[in-house]
């Protein structure tokens, strides 16, 4: 089963502060461990929300709202995808994730299990999703 470890944004990451050497080393070491254990599938960091945008819906109306967005904790700054044998194993790997806060104080990660398309019941829409490669 697959899990995504989502790294929450912080004031610093939102300010576009690049990770310092110590943080890069810790993250590299952690991801090397994942790789050595054969569980790492994918990982990436995201740029600050200042470079992104949102689209708000109200019925049929769409409004584009440019970043940055205020509430850093609601934003994500990166993700790591792993493939493991059990939820407990995912928990154990998540426990070892280095504190992602750039200033080393308050950080947060969130772990979510990926849906497999088979988790949905049979439906025509799901079949269409399959055809566009999001499975």
């Amino acid at each position: 089963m697959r899990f995504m470890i989502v790294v929450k944004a912080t004031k610093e990451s939102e300010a576009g502060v690049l990770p310092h050497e110590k943080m890069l080393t810790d993250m590299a070491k952690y991801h090397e461990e994942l790789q050595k254990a054969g569980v790492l599938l994918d990982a990436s960091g995201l740029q600050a929300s200042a470079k992104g945008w949102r689209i708000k819906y109200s019925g049929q109306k769409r409004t584009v709202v440019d970043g940055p967005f205020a509430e850093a904790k609601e934003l994500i700054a990166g993700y790591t995808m792993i493939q493991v044998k059990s939820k407990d194993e995912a928990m154990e790997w998540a426990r070892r994730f280095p504190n992602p806060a750039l200033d080393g104080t308050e950080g947060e990660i969130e772990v979510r299990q990926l849906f497999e398309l088979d988790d949905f019941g049979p439906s025509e829409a799901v079949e269409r999703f399959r055809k566009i490669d999001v499975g």
Partner: protein
Amino acid sequence: MTTPDVHRAIDAVWRIESAKVIAGLTRITGDVGTAEDLAQDALVAALERWPESGVPDNPGAWLMATAKNRAIDVLRRGKLLERKHEELGHELEARQESPERELAAALDDHVGDDLLSLMFTACHPVLATEARTALTLRLLGGLTTDEIARAFLVPKATIAQRIVRAKRTLAAARVPFEVPRGAELAARLASVLEVIYLVFNEGYSATAGDDWMRPALCEDALRLGRILADLVPQEPEVHGLVALMELQASRSGARVGPSGEPILLLDQDRGRWDHLLIRRGLAALQRAEAPGGGYGPYALQAAIAACHASARTPEETDWTRIVALYDALAQLQPSPVVELNRAVALGMAFGPAAGLEVVDTLTSEPALEGYHLLPAVRGDLLDKLGRFAEARAEFERAASLTRNARERTLLLERAARARVDRR
């Protein structure tokens, strides 16, 4: 955490750490069996203590330190001599002179080497293939005897005995705990790759049982392959094998229908292929090219899988390239099974008659006697040529030869269709 939570956490820690711990301990004690016993002791200690103390920050280090202390105790008391086979006794006496130093040296930066040595030991040619497989899953995959037994549909006692005998054989043969060098490395690595691919294949198209696939085994094999690729990144064929497994696994979700029936490659819904795994497979394939250019046998098979993975529809498949890749594979590793696959590709590239011509040279091949895919392929080619009665007979024969229930159903359906539709 409640006690059941802690026990589940310990299971997870064991899954992650056991191979490293066993590998480190084998370096110290020189014996896989003793190492596993010590590691199990450490696990029991964790089960006793962690529910009260909580899971330590670095549980792997805790297990290793605990096992290490037991090893020192045992070495000091000379008990290790009793736990080991007599023929190893002499070697150990020499080591006993400075157990601590031996330990300190062993535990330093050897984790990678130790794991690799453990892989080579578990896949040593002195062991029968079945024993290599069981030992590899147990020691490196972190699977319990019960899990291995369930995966291979054999009684637990059989697997347990297989593992005990394997350890005994390794000790009796005085198999050194090391990474082979020079000319020996290639042959020994081939054995490791073979075991990993065998596990994968048992999961990918189960040779027995009711389910056509056992995905957990595929994932175990992929994990072992990825670990190995990280340990010996300079070996192109390791990447070739990983590429092959990633690409084949990318099709897992598409090759079984709603009621568990197999769906053949060309009939699969390609939207269900896993594009993350395809991407990883193609990346691994790039690393699989030998320094002087050219592919080994696993990389060639991966390159064939890549041809399918890159075709958005069956019609876009580059069958001519697939034929060329099978030609190369047949040169490197000639075998009737490769010929049979080459015949399928020929049939697709140049018409069923071209394929049938090759298949007909294989019908008297002793190695393919009883191999259900020979009549299955021949039936398919005959069917396409409009020779329905012969096709039907071949599908029926194929159905009678397969040991897999799902596959049998599919073949009998094809036989029935050859009977009804096309007369």
